[in-house]
């Protein structure tokens, strides 16, 4: 059978009054779409503003905390180490007191709330009497040195 021998009648049907009602249904759908389009624009802008403010706030808090953390951690670090622990560390690491003092990051110490005043940093070598006084004060036995 050849195709040209067939009639090309339409076998598909539509519900009654479909084409009569379609323009009105479409108009309603377009109005709904327009309404929905207006609402998200406002919401989207609000969301973007809130998100931008939140990001700035988070960065500000993070930066502030981080800054404080450095100072606090230096304070905490120094205050948490007991003299005994410090001495033990020197013994275990076989580091001399001079080497230890040299290795300290003075900037961290200087950033503490109770900075070491200049009078505690000797500009000249200590005499034996002062050394003994310091050893007595910090209860460091000579065997550790």
């Amino acid at each position, binding site marked *: 059978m050849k195709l040209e021998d067939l009639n090309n009648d339409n*076998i598909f049907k539509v519900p009654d009054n479909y*084409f009569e009602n379609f323009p009105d249904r*479409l108009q309603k759908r377009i109005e709904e779409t327009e309404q929905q389009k207006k609402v998200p624009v406002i919401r989207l802008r609000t969301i973007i503003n809130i998100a931008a403010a939140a990001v700035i706030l988070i960065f500000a808090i993070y930066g502030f905390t981080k800054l404080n953390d450095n100072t606090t951690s230096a304070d905490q670090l120094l205050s948490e180490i007991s003299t005994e622990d410090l001495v033990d560390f020197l013994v275990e690491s076989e580091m001399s007191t001079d080497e230890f003092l040299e290795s300290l990051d003075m900037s961290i110490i200087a950033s503490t709330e109770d900075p070491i005043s200049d009078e505690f940093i000797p500009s000249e070598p200590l005499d034996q009497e002062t050394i003994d006084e310091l050893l007595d004060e910090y209860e460091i036995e000579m065997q550790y040195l």
Partner: protein
Amino acid sequence: MSKYLFTRTLQKEREILKKIKDPASRDLGFNQLVVAYQQRLYWHIRKMVIDHDDTDDLLQEVFIKVWKNIEKFREDSNLYTWMYKIATNECLNFLKRKKDKFKVPMEDVNKELYGQLDNSPHISGSAVQMKLQKALLRLPDKQRLVFNMKYFEDMKYDDISKITETSVGSLKASYHIAVKKIEEYIKLH
């Protein structure tokens, strides 16, 4: 389409476009556009997706896109082929989405459409016409599209070429192959 009808269609299109571009008569103009083209676009979509409800959804989508983009429409091109192009893309995307959604090959989607031919209350025809539709569902979607536009809608190859962005030579070859496949199917079933 005769030269007289073609000229009338163009004149009508221009009148409608003029109304749509004037904010005071935009709704009226668009309504006239819908009334003028709804049936042709409906049948174009329906022959591809078979189901009436799917066709109804897609037809609304097509007109919503036309509504949103009519300002961008260039008047040197034909409004009717522009809308057909939108409808064609909607159909092909719909069939592709259907395939992707169910993770099944296109053949299985076509089998589902095949079942709708037998069971839908909105489809009735002679045994030979049903065979023709079943044969059509065995064709690749784009070939089916070309066949529908040529055989059922009696469109010119030039217009089909603009809608599908395919050369006239390829369209003629595609239609010829489709006819052979359909005749073979009808002969065997």
